[in-house]
């Protein structure tokens, strides 16, 4: 026994030493020979990639966490590495929620990628934290005039393009054709009609609409923004203060509170985007608000429902109100300032926009991701996709919405305030305090507005 124990201890000690060696995998980028840096710097000067070979390792964080999208990106990286044998691209994926935690914490500790995808609201925060590198040359290389000016503008400050839009999508109203037909209800075009339809369609098994206000996500902000935007308002004032106490915003909060009480599962106060979508996939919800991603979600989870869903523009307050545009998301790629190999990163970003790769990427989530550059939508290859053909009408509805809307709070241009509006769950917490905590709407709205304004001031 004694011998046994002492030999165990010796093995243990040896184990520790060994582990110390094998586990110490420092990021290789940092231990690279510095001579490579000078070499690559020269590459940039010559401006031509064919003369000098690219060499180095870059990390790419993206949020395309599952399925085909992930595969397409991986394939693009593999091909790129084949063409540039001395380049290594490491791809890491995070859900959007984790990604936010990752890069904010990473920025504090210097642990961030070379390139990443981002939400438009994040980009402004990243620019504000001086974490990004301009991509003007990449935009020029792809073709500056191919991008819609407004789209490109979301990541532009002082003439520097800090982000390149990768794809676009917009929020629309999804509905179940079969349920509406059965009940003899027309597709609602105003919020009043929507309310009536949702209430009518709520049964023991199906909810008219779920009102999601889970913290750690932006769904509550998004729903409130639908209402406020449809009335031509904004959640931010012109001088970029939070605006939750305007008549329009108060009406909007009350509207969703009413729907929560009458047509929503009560658990929806905790729902994040996926919980909400999941309910629609399960056929438990008559309406939902989402982008074209719903098509892919339904196709994956409950293909039987695919023929029963369709979408329409988000309702308005009065039928004859003008179209103010609601919420468009242009998901971009950004280049982080700390990168050691900007030219590799830039070359790879350009590479993704090669027509073949780009279309394959978009069609990994057909209808969900609409092209962010001109000349793709009508191309033959793009139109070949069966899902895109089946949902041609829906694609039109979404495309039209894309053209009109902006990211949440971007009505007055991109701003850190707009980013903070959606990223801190303050509006979600406000909804929760009203729906569950019993706080009255005006008090809760005032409190949330103050909190938001305080956090805006901190960023000054």
């Amino acid at each position, binding site marked *: 026994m004694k011998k046994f124990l002492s030999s165990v201890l010796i093995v243990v000690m040896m184990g520790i030493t060994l582990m110390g060696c094998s586990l110490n995998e420092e990021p290789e980028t940092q231990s690279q020979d510095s001579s490579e840096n000078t070499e690559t710097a020269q590459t940039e000067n010559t401006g031509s990639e064919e003369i000098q070979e690219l060499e180095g390792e870059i990390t790419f964080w993206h949020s395309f966490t599952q399925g085909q999208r992930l595969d397409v990106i991986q394939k693009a990286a593999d091909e790129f590495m084949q063409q540039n044998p001395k380049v290594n691209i490491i791809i890491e994926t995070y859900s959007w929620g984790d990604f936010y*935690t990752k890069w*904010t*914490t990473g*920025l*504090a500790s210097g642990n961030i990628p070379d390139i990443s995808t981002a939400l438009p609201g994040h980009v402004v*925060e990243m620019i504000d*934290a*001086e*974490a990004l590198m301009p991509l003007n040359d990449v935009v020029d290389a792809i073709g500056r005039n191919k991008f819609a000016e407004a789209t490109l503008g979301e990541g532009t400050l002082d003439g520097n393009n800090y982000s390149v839009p990768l794809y676009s999508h917009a929020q629309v109203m999804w509905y179940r054709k079969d349920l509406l037909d059965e009940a003899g209800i027309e597709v609602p075009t105003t919020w009043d009609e929507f309310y009536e339809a949702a209430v009518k369609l709520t049964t023991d098994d199906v*909810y008219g609409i779920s009102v999601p*206000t*889970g*913290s*750690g996500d932006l769904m509550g902000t998004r729903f409130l923004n639908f209402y406020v935007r449809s009335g031509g308002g904004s959640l931010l004032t012109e001088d970029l203060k939070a605006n939750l106490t305007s008549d329009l915003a108060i009406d909007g909060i009350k509207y969703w509170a009413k729907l929560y009480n009458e047509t929503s*599962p*009560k*658990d*929806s*106060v*905790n729902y994040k985007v996926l919980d909400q979508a999941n*309910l629609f996939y*399960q056929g*438990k919800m008559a309406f939902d608000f989402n982008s074209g991603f719903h098509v892919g979600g339904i196709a994956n989870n409950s293909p039987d429902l695919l023929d029963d869903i369709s979408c329409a523009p988000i309702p308005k307050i009065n039928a004859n109100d003008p179209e103010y545009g609601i919420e468009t998301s242009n998901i971009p790629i950004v280049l982080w300032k700390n990168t050691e190999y900007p030219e590799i990163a830039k070359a790879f970003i350009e590479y993704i926009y090669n027509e073949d790769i780009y279309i394959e990427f978009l069609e990994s989530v057909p209808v969900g991701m609409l092209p962010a550059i001109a000349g793709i939508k009508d191309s033959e290859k793009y139109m070949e996709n069966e899902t895109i053909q089946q949902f041609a009408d829906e694609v039109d509805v979404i495309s039209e919405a894309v053209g009109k809307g902006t990211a949440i709070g971007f009505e007055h241009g991109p701003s850190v305030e707009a980013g903070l509006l959606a990223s*801190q*769950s*303050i509006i979600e*917490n406000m909804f*929760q*305090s009203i*729906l*569950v*905590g*019993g*706080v009255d709407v005006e008090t809760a709205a005032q409190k949330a507005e103050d*909190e938001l304004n305080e*956090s805006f001031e*901190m*960023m000054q």
Partner: protein
Amino acid sequence: MFVKKERNLTRWIFVLPALLVVGMLLIYPVFSSIYYSLTSKHLIKQSYSFIGFKNYIYVLQDSAFYVALLNSIKWTVLSLTGQILIGFSAALALHRVVKFKGIYRTLLIIPWAFPSIVIALSWKWILNGVYGYVPNLLFDLGLTTERLQFFSDANLVFMTLVFINVWFGAPMIMVNILSALQTIPKDQYEAAKIDGAKRWQSFVHITLPHIKIVVGLLVVLRTIWVFNNFDIIYLLTGGGPANLTTTLPIYAYNMGWGTKFLGRSSAVTILLLLFLLVVTGVYFTVIRKWEKEES
């Protein structure tokens, strides 16, 4: 005698590694937290300045802090009471039965093998207010008039979390109390029986004193663990709805990563630590008293 003579440098070799680990890994972070708590540090802003006790003043004036503190205390007391009641009674029952003892024991410690993320995933689904098995079962059986909303009903949500925490924590208590029970010499009971003691009397006079210190230690350990616990609540409700389940660690997290006020968040964690020190200080005094009584 030789112990005294040789008390030289080698004795330090025994304790140094542990002191180093603790020193390097804990002293720096704690002092940096104390330092941050006195500054306007923001998670993603580069510049910050010294602002004295402003963060503490802010936190101590924030009504949400007291809500979180109260929740923390409720969470700890209720969870621990539940864990000990269930763990203790299960241990007593296990100690008594002869048949199937091994099977029960194996099955009863299953929850302990659940990482918090799996706890969250499985219970979130089982108790889901729309498609959860339990709410639907109760509804279909006619026991409830509508599907219970375990995670959003203001009257239910806190107790749901406590239940899950008891589910998770009771097995550890049970296992430890059971082994303490097994160390009690049988002849003490026999002797008591001969003296005509009733069952509850021998329970109070023999069983309880024997396991008192184990239970005491368990309570200290679990108090610290439950009080500091972040995962379970974060993964199940994130502190919501309407801060009904926000405990201090969640409150600190939301401040650090939600609104990104790292300075304030640090102030909260320092207050949290102070509170724990006081509570465990009291515990230790009590346990030391017990130990003295015993020897």
